[in-house]
Structures are given as C-alpha cells and as structure tokens.
C-alpha cells in the first residue's frame, strides 16, 4: 500500500509538468495577448509591457523561468490583467470562497443524494421510487444556468428572503443559493448511483443470509447494505469533490461570490496567462490528489482490493 502511494505521487509530478506544458503552449498559441486592446497602443508602449512581463523572451525560456519560480519560491508570478495583484493573491482570495461553498454543496449533495437513492432502492417499484428517480433525472438534466436565475428571481425578487448575490465572508444568507445551484446535479447523480448499487447489494447472497439469520431489517440495511453499496458512490465522489471545490462559473457569475470558478474563464478570455496557469495547476494538483484519496478509501472499504 505504502509503496503504491509513493509510486502514485511520483507519477503526479510528470503529470503536472505535462499539464503545464500543454496549457502553456495552447495559451501562447491563442491569437492576441494580454495587452491587445481596442485602442491599439503605440509600439513603444507594447514593447515596454512585454519587457516588464518577460513576454519578449523565447517561449521555452518563459516556461523554464515560470516553473523555476514555482519550484524555488512558490511564486506563480504577477497577474497580467489585475495589475496590482499576484496570482498567489488572486487564488488566496478566491479559492477559500469556492472551497467553502463547494464543500457545503458536496456534503449536502452527498447526504441528500444517498438518502434519496437509498429510499428509492428500498421502496423499489413503488411511487416513492418513481418519484425519486424522476426527481433525480430531472435535476440532472436541468442546467445550473437555468436554476441560478430562477433562484434569484424567486428568493430575492419575489419573496425577498435572500440577498441576490455577494459573499460577505461566507455569511449564511449568502451561501444558501450558491449551494442549491451547485449541488442539484451532483445530488441527482449520487442518488442514481446509490439506488442501483443498493439494489445490487440487496439481492446478493450475503444479505439473504443476514436476513435468514433473523437480523432486524435496519441492522441489515445499515451494516450489511450501505457500506458495500458505497463503493461506486465513493469512486464518483472523488472527482465530483474536486469539481465542486474548484467552483462553478455559473455560481460565480450569478451570485457575485468572487470565487475562483470564473477566474479561469476570465483569464482565458483576457489572456491573463499567469492566472490561467495558476488555476490550471491548482485544479490539476487537486484532481491528482483526490484521485489518490479515493483509491485509498476504496481499499479501506473493500479489503479485497490490493495494489
């Protein structure tokens, strides 16, 4: 197990390097640069800018300097667009926000999703089941960019219960709508996976044995059904967790949360090279890390799996 973890971490580093190279090349190949502007700047002004930000260097050198600064000083450079901020500052400000609403959404989606899926499985082929399945497919196909404006319309404009946007350091009133908008689709997926996984376990032999032994039904469900049924759920939750804590463009756009979800898209469109790279590396590193966590969890839940 330990050797396996070490091996995985060893692979993570070249993976990140490949990610950096791909993104770097794609980014610089895109037409226009951070200083392309509607009012074209005189050549001298552009030359000064390129010199200041090192864009006058050959590409390989820029890339090498970039990686070196990260390794040496954990310095991701200055933002090209937010001129009085560094990438570290941009991420330090936005990531905690997404981490908060992402984690809450994750917990909500997991609890509600598993509960919904489990109930549906236990009441298979009753109206409860059909309702639960209907809700989960519906919730899954309804895009969050439809849910978000509806939420604002209902809870802010019509009912006046919740503020339509802002973050205010994570005050509860400001967190509710982002969490609903972000968690819905994940909740639906978790419910569907839980349902079919539970159904499979419920029809398996060891449940039949447990029942035959005369164990009370709640014990059968809690002890013998839920844990094994969680395997596929866990493998879904790992990547889902990463996507959720790295935020959502839709949430940041509609609720002015100031999270990191929008940073990448903005940075890509503004050609803010350094912010784009910073966010990509952050998301890549988190993905690799949580994939590893999932594998370890997997081994813990299902001792049959050995690496």
């Amino acid at each position: 197990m330990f050797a396996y973890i070490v091996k995985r971490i060893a692979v993570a580093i070249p993976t990140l390097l490949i990610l950096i190279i791909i993104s770097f090349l794609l980014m610089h190949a895109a037409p226009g640069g951070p200083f392309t502007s509607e009012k074209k700047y005189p050549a001298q002004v552009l030359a000064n800018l390129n010199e200041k930000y090192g864009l006058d260097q050959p590409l390989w050198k820029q890339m090498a300097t970039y990686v070196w600064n990260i390794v040496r000083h954990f310095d991701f450079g200055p933002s090209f667009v937010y001129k009085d901020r560094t990438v570290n500052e941009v991420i330090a400000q936005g990531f905690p926000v997404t981490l908060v609403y992402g984690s809450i959404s994750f917990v909500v989606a997991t609890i509600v999703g598993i509960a919904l899926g489990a109930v549906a499985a236990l009441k298979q082929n009753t109206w409860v089941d059909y309702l639960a399945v209907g809700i989960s497919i519906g919730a899954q196909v309804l895009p969050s960019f439809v849910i978000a404006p509806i939420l604002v319309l209902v809870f802010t404009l019509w009912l006046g219960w919740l503020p339509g946007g802002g973050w205010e350091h994570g005050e509860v009133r400001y967190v509710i709508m982002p969490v609903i908008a972000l968690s819905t689709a994940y909740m639906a997926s978790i419910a569907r996976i839980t349902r079919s996984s539970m159904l499979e376990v419920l029809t398996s032999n060891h449940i039949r044995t447990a029942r035959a032994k005369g164990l009370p039904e709640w014990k059968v469900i809690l002890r013998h059904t839920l844990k094994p049924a969680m395997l596929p759920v866990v493998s879904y939750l790992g990547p889902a967790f990463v996507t959720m804590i790295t935020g959502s463009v839709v949430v940041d756009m509609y609720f002015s949360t100031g999270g990191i979800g929008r940073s990448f898209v903005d940075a890509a469109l503004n050609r803010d090279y350094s912010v784009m790279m910073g966010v990509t590396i952050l998301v890549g590193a988190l993905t690799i890390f949580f994939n590893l966590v999932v594998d370890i969890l997997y081994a813990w839940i299902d001792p049959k799996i050995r690496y």
Partner: protein
Amino acid sequence: MNRRLLLSTVLVAALAGPVFAANPQPGETLSDNRSYTFRELDAIKTLDPGLNADVEGSDVLRALFEGLYNEDSDGNLVPGVATSYDLSDDKTTYTFHLRPEAKWSNGDPVTAQDFVYAWQRLADPALASEYAWYLELGQIVNAAEVTAGKVKPDQLGVKAVDDHTFEVKLIAPLPYFPKLVTNASLFPVHKATIDKFGADWTKPGNLVSNGAYVLKDHILGEKIVMERNKNYWDDAHTFMDTVTGVTINDENAGLTRFLAGEVDRTDVPAGQYPQLKEKYPDMATSTPYSCSYTYVINLTDKGNKALQDVRVRKALSYAVDRDIIVNNVLQGGQKPAYNWTHWAVNGFKMPDIDYSHWTQAERNDKAKALLAEAGYGPDKPLTIQLNYNTSEAHQKIASAIAQMWKQTLGVDLVLNNLEWKVHTDRMQSQDFEMARYAWCGDYNEASTYLDLLASYSGNNNGKYSNPDYDKLMKDAKTAADPNADYTKAEEILATDMPIIPIYHYAKVDMIQPDIKGLPQNNVQQSWYAKDIYRVAK
C-alpha cells in the same frame, strides 16, 4: 510673461462662486441613507491611476482621487485640485494654480510635486503603463522620448514652480488640452506610499488618496467599498458615507438585483428599455454617450476585392435600415448614425449628409442601382465576411443587417463570432473583410473620433487613406474653428464610405428615483461619487 487668456478668465469667473459638490435643489430633503451602490460589469483591474486602462477603473478612481479639473453634470470643466490655469502667449505652456487646502487622506498637502511625480511615472518605461500614450496625445514635451527610454523621466515637460503651481509644456498648441486632464491616468499619486509599499500600495489600508473617498475593501469578483475621506478639502459638501461597486457579470442578473433594491444603478439589457420605461418611468433613463458603432471595411489587399469599389460600400451602407437597429433591436434611445462623430459631442456641427434625409425605400433603390452598376447581381452574387466579438447585442445587430442585405441586395453576409482578443488581433493585423468596431471618445471633442481615420493613425484598422482628409485633420489642430474642418472631414467620409456608421450610443440605465447628482448631459458619462446624494422618499 504669462497673460491670462480670455477663455480661462471666463471659465474662472463662472466658477468664482462657492462650488458645491453634492448640491441638493430647493425643496429636496436629504435621506438618512448615506450609501450608494452601483453595478460593475467586471472586477476593477487596478486601483493605480498610472496603470488603469479602462472605463470601470476610471469610475472608481474618480471617487478615490482627484485630478486638476473635474467635469460637471453637463461635461464642462470645473476646478478640482487646480482652481485656475494660465496659458502662455505661444499657447504651449499651461500653468495650473493648485488649491492650498487640498490634502491626501493621511493629512499631507497635495502639491505640484505630486503631479510631477505622477506624470513622470506614467511616462516611465519602468512602470510600463498602457496609458503612457496619453501624454503623447497631450503633446507634452518629451512624452514620447521618455516612454521610449531615450531620455530620463525627469526630462518630461512638467515642472513644479512652487508647491501650488504646476507647469506643463506642450510641443505645439492643443486647444483641447485642459479637457484631457480629467482623465484618471493624470491623477496625482502619493510618492511616499508608493516608496513604502511598492506594488502593494493600492491594497486597502495602504492606499493614500486625495479624492472624496478612501478605499475600505476590494475583493475581486465581489465588490469594492469606499468610505468618506475626512481629509478631503470639500468633505463638508460630500453626502454619501459609503460608495460600493458590486460585480455582477450578467446584466439581467443586475436588473433583478436592482429591482430587489440591492443596487442603486444598473445597466438596462439591450432591448428592454421601452418595457422598463413604461413600468418604471422614474427609474429608466437614457442619456447620450460618446461612442459610435460602425462596421469597418478593410481597404487593403487582404480585404474583399468587391469592397474596394466605393459603389459597393455605399450600396451596403444605404441598405442598412438604421431605424430598425435603433428602434427594434436596441430600443434604448440610441440614434441612427450616418456619420462617424457622435452627434452630441461638444461643438460638433453635423454635416449635411444626403442619404440621411432619404426614406429607407429611396436608400434601398439607390443601393440596388449602385450594386448593379458595380456589376453584382443574381448572376454574380456577393459574399462578405463580417467579424464581430462575442456579445448578444453585436450578434443581434449583425444578424439583422445580414437579413437586410440579403433581402435588399441579395448579398450574403457570413457572420464570424470571434472571441474579443481574437477579433481585436485580426482587426489590427488587417486580417478581415468587414469588422464591427466601436470607438468611445477619450475627450469631448470631435478630433477624438476623426483623427482615427487619418492615414497615419495607429487605430485606422481599415487603412483608409485620403490626402484631403489628412490635410483637414492636420489643419484642424491649429485652426481657429476646428469644427468647420471636422464637418468637412465628415463629408469626405460620406463620399468615400470607408466605414459604415450604424448608430450613436446612449447610456441606458436603471437608477433608483431617490438618487440624485448623476450627470445628465455629460457625453463622456464620467460621474463623481462626491456629487451624488439621496433624497428622502
């Protein structure tokens, strides 16, 4: 010897009385709610006046800092840190007299040295400001040389004669120079703060500013909060205690939050103005905004051959039913454009352009005839590529015009929706046939538009070139009445049709009815937070 000119004497006389910032009208009672919240499209990119390059940053910088002059509700100059200026006989030396009571937010006096430092810093290649060219635009001595690194920043043509006298030397007379000093890039900055904090000097807590407000909080993508500056020289006349800018990317979401009472001012989404005006007559406003919307035609070899023919360009221009664009697509009080300079620009006399008086049916007939004359028709159909940047409004206009050209002329317009940077990049490298282009005036005078189409202009993306036009623009710089030249220049444009003018902008906003003091007739749409007040309902 400097002699006070008639112009500046009149200006000073008009302003001799006490200047009230927030200036309630008789009969208005002020509200207890002393906070103002406005929507901003994107996060503020920088709070460093030297580095700022966009409109939204300027809005905030005008609250935090104060330059030599400000603009009033109608776009006229009113004293800021300077109370008056003198102009030398050769019209190349401006001497600004600064008010002694002006202070920084930490209590230091605002001096002429602060301006000297700020302007030198702007030109300095070490800062690498995107707006360094603005000093060149102002014709300031050595501006270009400093930016190019050929001479040291201290060679820039600015000087502190004493603590409260600031002198600027120009290469050549520039009648509209005073209008330029309201731009945020020319605001003073506090040297001691910059020396102390370096790149972090604009962070909340560090920033020392000389405007009516100081920075409280600035969170990317969420909001910026500013609070009253107790040390501002005119603090007694400032009404709002806090001014907050909230980032709302989507204009429809902005409107919802406006209606829920969360913001005091937001933009009206394209096409929604009439409906909102009917429902909320005291909130929906439309005021002229100095920007023009056009389709630029690439006249180089890289463009479409057919468009080299002036008849084709005219036919296309005539066949655009601008009334439909402004009345059905935009519907926000924009005006149809048959010329380049925005109609409301100060002093500009609209030329007599023939096709602007015709009915659309007449224009269409003429257009068909011209196109046939140029040899295009059913047997030789014309296909044109149009580039525009991603935006719902551009898309709506482009597809409406495509349909007009298809129906009237049988011309196929292929729409290329490009991401903003790609669009700009292609336009600036003449890699297009026809491209959407809008220009917003840097200052309130027609040359900000017309200079752009001179053959030597860096922003002349279609590479239009006409010696007569160039001559007019050069003469206008020193002419007693440049507006006559501007009118003639516009007439040349109507004959050559290097661009297809489409409409003149209006700023269409929803403003809470109890908010007063926002500019009414300022085509630059510059607003000053210190002028805003709220009346009791």
